């Protein structure tokens, strides 16, 4: 909740980003359709803020992150980072831009090369991108370890000798090696135990203050998102259905899906048990292969109207930051 550092300047602008995966079938591998993992997503991220993307599995939140880094090639749209359009850059220019954008993953086991020591893992970005002497490099590696709360005695160990929380710290240290401006955190604490989760969340916040970082925080856990975010976007089936400041989303949600999500979270307070107004959605998230016509959410929506089946709602601005795609707000 480090809101003090947010500047007004935009660091990242995403415009109408689409990432469709082709579905190949048949003998010749012809394309028979596409999965619209991300289908027209637009948002901006300001310098120094934590922008969260929240949604259920299959909503496309991770694909947004991977598309910004071009680890997954987007189909169309614009990603403007520091006034440069990431999607138009060639391989060489991309390499330069990527130094400023790093990523932290959920699976701490597969995010570190099991055959490399911690020293090798942390040196790698420096070897590739910085010309520095071996001594300088070693110094920097130790500095990175200290930054994430580990010590030099960990240098010559392998990833499997660490606990999940420690491995995540190493993943964070690696992301910090090149002094990035933006870090995409893809479910960084979802695989961790509660007591370790809070250690990592606090670490991320401390680092943000110290190193003036900007985060895109991708998560399915609403409590964590509420804790760490400045602004939040809620995604459903490839589209952002609601976006706004944290307080707006969590205290005054407008979209029925956001309301349902919030009311679904079990709260660790037995006194609230029967006092909360709960919306329990029926059914499952439809397949992104063929999302329902009109508003994607209409099949599960308790407030469905006729026009919801016909047209996808356009955004309605509730406040300067807060916009919602729902026909309920049309009038």
């Amino acid at each position, binding site marked *: *909740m480090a809101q003090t550092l947010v500047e007004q300047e935009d660091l990242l602008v995403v415009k109408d980003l689409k990432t469709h995966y082709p579905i190949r079938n048949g003998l010749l591998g012809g394309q028979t359709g596409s999965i619209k993992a991300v289908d027209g997503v637009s948002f901006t991220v300001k310098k120094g803020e934590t922008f969260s993307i929240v949604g*259920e*599995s299959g909503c496309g939140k991770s694909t947004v992150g991977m598309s910004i880094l071009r680890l997954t090639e987007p189909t169309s749209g614009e990603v403007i980072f520091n006034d440069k359009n990431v999607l138009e850059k060639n391989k060489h220019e991309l390499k330069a831009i990527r130094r400023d954008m790093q990523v932290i993953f959920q699976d701490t086991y597969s995010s570190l090369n099991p055959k490399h020591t911690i020293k090798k893992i942390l040196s790698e970005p420096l070897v590739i991108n910085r010309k520095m002497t071996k001594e300088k490099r070693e110094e920097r590696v130790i500095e990175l370890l200290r930054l994430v709360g580990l010590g030099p005695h960990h240098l010559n160990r392998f990833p499997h000798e660490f*606990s999940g*929380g*420690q491995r995540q710290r190493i993943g964070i240290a690696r992301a910090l090696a090149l002094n990035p401006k933006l870090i995409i955190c893809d479910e960084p604490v979802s695989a961790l*135990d*509660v*007591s*370790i*989760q*809070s*250690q990592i*969340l*606090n670490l991320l*916040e401390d680092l943000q203050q110290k190193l003036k970082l900007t985060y895109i925080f991708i998560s*399915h856990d*609403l*409590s*964590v998102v*509420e*804790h*760490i975010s400045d602004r939040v976007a809620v995604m459903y089936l490839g589209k952002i259905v609601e976006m706004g400041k*944290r307080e707006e989303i*969590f205290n005054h949600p407008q979209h029925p899906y956001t309301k*349902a*999500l*919030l*009311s*679904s*979270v*079990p*709260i*660790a*307070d*037995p*006194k*609230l*048990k029967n006092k909360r107004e*709960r919306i*329990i*959605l*029926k*059914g*499952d*998230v439809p397949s992104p292969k063929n999302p329902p016509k009109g508003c994607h959410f209409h099949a599960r929506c308790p407030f469905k109207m006729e026009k919801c089946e016909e047209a996808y709602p356009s955004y309605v601005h509730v406040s300067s930051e807060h916009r919602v795609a729902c026909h309920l707000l049309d009038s």
Partner: protein
Amino acid sequence: MTTLLEVKNLNAGLGEGDYRSLLDQINFTVKKGEAIAVVGESGCGKSMTALSIMGLLPRNIKIKSGEIKLEGVELTSKSQKEMNEIRGKEIAMIFQEPLTSLNPSFTIGNQIAEVLKYHTDYTAEQIKEKSIEVLKQVNMPDPEEKLKAYPHELSGGMRQRVMIAMALACHPKILIADEPTTALDVTIQAQILELITELQNKFNMSIIMITHDLGVVAETCQRAIVMYAGQIVEESSVEELFEKPLHPYTRGLMLSAPRLGNPKEKLHVIEGTVPDPDDMPKGCRFSPRCEFATEKCFAEEPPLEQVDKSRRVRCWHKLL
């Protein structure tokens, strides 16, 4: 309320000569119709406790001593064959990952029928009727159709419903739910938790809810047992537990999880990590991570003490 299940001084661990304790003096009872939570982080022994009750411990882990009594009948001395009679019929269990718990090469109908065939002498006709009935009980949309479906054709939430339907097929007295919603999305989790509570009330079934999520505990259970490093550290009614946790670990867990609608500047942190079973700390097992630890905590292991009628705590410095 009558006592249904009683676990007494249960000790279990790895190996024999080079014994490593994984469960240490587990003591608790489950009453008829109540939902009891077993809470803790990974490696605390909560799933191991459930598997001991089911008689499904991995081969390398053995019960060293202790009793598990279901309505007065000792379970630990039963053979696998005798346990098969009890599993599914008296006690049923559902797991975290419904995809791996279902056999991918049989239809849902086949798998429910399997349970019924084993424990009842229904005819084929009755089995089908009963299968549809249990699928209806778990609010499965068009149950007749779903009998012909294979597990991979269903979503995660639907598969968990099938698991619950199979567990319920023979009206077990106790349902053990091992992290039943951890692999599911929030909106689906809400559906499943609601279903479990509904079924508990409908059939007056006892539930042992194994979870790491305090939110799930608060919403579905009446009593809770907190485990740490193979031991019970606290037991209490859910209201009292959340009102006033007595063990520093319980308190730490509650403070370190971000809670919806109550954002804080900074999360509380429990330093360090869960100890390795090879390398258990002397004295209180939580002492190296405890902010209130004193000399005594490092030297002597505290007993699990009864503090009032329904509360037990294992701590030298209870947060009274």
